[in-house]
């Protein structure tokens, strides 16, 4: 295939990756930004979302579309509930101390993985796409569903953005992120806000998991990769900066696709990973983040 179409394909793929990544990373960024908590179990919420999507959609084998829509609503809610529980039972009792919470969320990661392995099994199970059509370009064909993913993710991002920037809830959240003590002084129920944020972050990961599951499959070890990618994204974007996170998601999503056209992919991943580390060291506020890191 000649270079032009090749690049076009890489960009298409990049866009899909970018949107899904944006959702997942936004959740991580939100939790870190407001609560200063590095949630190592974030990837497992993604995984849980995908697995539950399989469970829900297999309740209505008759109509994939209906099953998927059902999953799109039920699965994130369930994951949100799990996150809420984790926050109440663990994180809150640790007063969100950074190191303690990291260890705790590592524990949470093991717990969730094992529970899924026990009750769902070690299999990689597919979920039928709600719609399945193939877009034929002059040079190659492309999954129609992937285009749907882009649309859906975009909508969800917009909704989240609206929630954070235009509603009172968002205002409260941002106030808490800006200065916890003052927020408390102004009578903002910080603990409730934290619970809400943690749940919201988890739900964003979960919904990303649901969207991805017709493309990938639900598997109990699928959480690690999105976790690492989200980390990378949040760092490049600037720790705690939502706008930065979004920009980074697109840069990474697109570049990841394009880089691997030129390098041996494994080498590309090595280079990319080192690059991220260096960004965090020399540009702690990220490449696109606002000054505050």
């Amino acid at each position, binding site marked *: *295939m000649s270079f032009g*179409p*090749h690049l076009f*394909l*890489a960009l298409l*793929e990049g866009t*899909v*990756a970018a949107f899904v990544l944006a959702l997942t990373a936004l959740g991580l960024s939100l939790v870190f930004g407001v609560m200063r908590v590095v949630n190592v179990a974030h990837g497992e919420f993604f995984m849980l979302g995908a697995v539950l999507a399989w469970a829900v959609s297999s309740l209505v084998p008759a109509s*994939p579309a209906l099953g998927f829509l059902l999953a799109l609503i039920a699965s994130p809610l369930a994951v949100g509930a799990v996150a809420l529980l984790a926050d109440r039972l663990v994180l809150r009792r640790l007063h969100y101390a950074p190191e303690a919470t990291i260890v705790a969320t590592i524990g949470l990661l093991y717990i969730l993985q*094992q529970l899924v*392995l026990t009750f769902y*099994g*070690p*299999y*990689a199970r*597919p*979920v*039928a*796409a709600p719609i*399945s059509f*193939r877009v*034929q370009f002059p040079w*190659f*064909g*492309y*999954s129609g569903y992937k285009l749907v993913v882009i649309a859906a993710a975009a909508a969800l991002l917009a909704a989240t953005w609206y929630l954070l920037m235009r509603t009172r809830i968002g205002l409260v959240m941002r106030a808490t992120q800006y200065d916890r003590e003052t927020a408390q002084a102004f009578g903002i129920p910080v603990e409730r806000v934290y619970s809400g944020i943690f749940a919201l972050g988890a739900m964003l990961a979960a919904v990303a998991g649901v969207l991805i599951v*017709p*493309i*990938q*499959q639900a*598997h109990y*070890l*699928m959480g690690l*990769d999105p976790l*690492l990618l989200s980390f990378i994204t949040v760092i490049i974007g600037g720790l705690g900066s939502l706008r930065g996170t979004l920009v980074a998601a697109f840069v990474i999503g697109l570049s990841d*696709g394009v880089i*691997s*056209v030129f390098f*041996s*992919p*494994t080498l590309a*991943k090595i280079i990319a990973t080192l690059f991220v580390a260096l960004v965090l060291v020399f540009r702690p506020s990220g490449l696109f983040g606002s000054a505050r890191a």
Partner: protein
Amino acid sequence: MAMKKTGAQGAASTRRKVLKGLTAAAGGAALSGLLPTPIRYFEARAQSPIKIGFQLHRTGIGAAYGRWYERTSNAAVKMINDAGGIAGRPIELVIEDDGTDPKRGAEVVEKFATEHKVDLVFGTLFSHVVIGSAPTAGQLKMPYFVVSEGHHVASTKLNRYVFQPGITDVRSQVISLAPWIAGNLGKKVTMIFPDFAFGHDHRDYFSDAIQKQGGSIAGLIPIPPTETSFTRYFPQIPADTEVLYHVMVGPGVLTFVKEMGEHFGSKRPQVFGFIDSLEAVDIASPGLEFLEGTYFWEAYPRYAQKDQTPHDKAYRQAVGVDENGAATGDAKDVSTYSHMFGCWETLYVIKHAVEKSGYQSATDKDKKALVEALEAMTAFEEGPEHPQGSKQFNGKLHQAFGQQVISKVEGKRLNAVHRTSIEDGLYEPEGDYTTQPL
């Protein structure tokens, strides 16, 4: 440690006394084919069991395979025990999970040897666990039977106590397929493989083999192990590719196949894949429609074929697999049919080796005899004990060589279209274990 050693010897010798009287019975049981069932059964119960440590991937990346390895092994053990056990002694399967982790694997082997005091260890699938555990097994002089299809055993880089008598190694599989691929699908091959050892074995051995057939490699496309989406690699497939050879493993494979389908649509080259990709996965899964008309290597046809042998019927029934290769009563629970038979066949090989060697207990002398008995073996006949088919066994390589099957996906099922001959899969030995000291 001295005092502990004597202790162990003490125990061993007393056990030997006990067993003295049993050897006759054991010999008798060797002829047990002649005896009516109840008596054999009684004998099997009466005597101290042969303990086999089962190193199982219950958790970790190997868990999907592990499940079926466990079912198959249990079925084989039941079958053997009901038929009088090994040398009149019942098999006792001791299971330890290794988490599909080489470190834990080695620890588990030690646990088998020193805590469970098993007679031998068996059942490992993933190559890195095999290689991680092999040195420990060697030091413990613990006969170690793997069902991994890796080339590690046959490479003679492990040690004299490691055997793979139940399943053909990947090198043999790959080269035995080359002639048919070159002759029926095409000569210009592009390979897509995971960018780590397993994939590199395929790359190296197949490239070599296809060129020997007058074919050529049009392109090599390694894919990093952490990859979850593959579409962007397909453009790297050269336009003049006649055959696309794919051997992906891990949970990402369905994605791979699906995206390949979306990429090519109707106008695609011939596609040849390794069933490893789709073990434990339903061919009829949504998104796999693209596989229609493509070819797969199978060690052992997942779907019962028209010419199904009675052994295959019996084997399926014993393990609990229906004619579509799924668990009886749960069509969604698809087996790892092209690998798990190795557990069944290995256990029978063990049975005969133990009986032939007159192995009594885990003494160096008896283990030595067992190893030599194994190395003396040359062939296994197709039958109830070897349902997958006849095999040659190379005692110098500790490796079995069997027939391979090439199947075509037709109507969402795999139909065998070609069986390779054992000779297709033979290669120049890289060494000789029998020269190592015991």
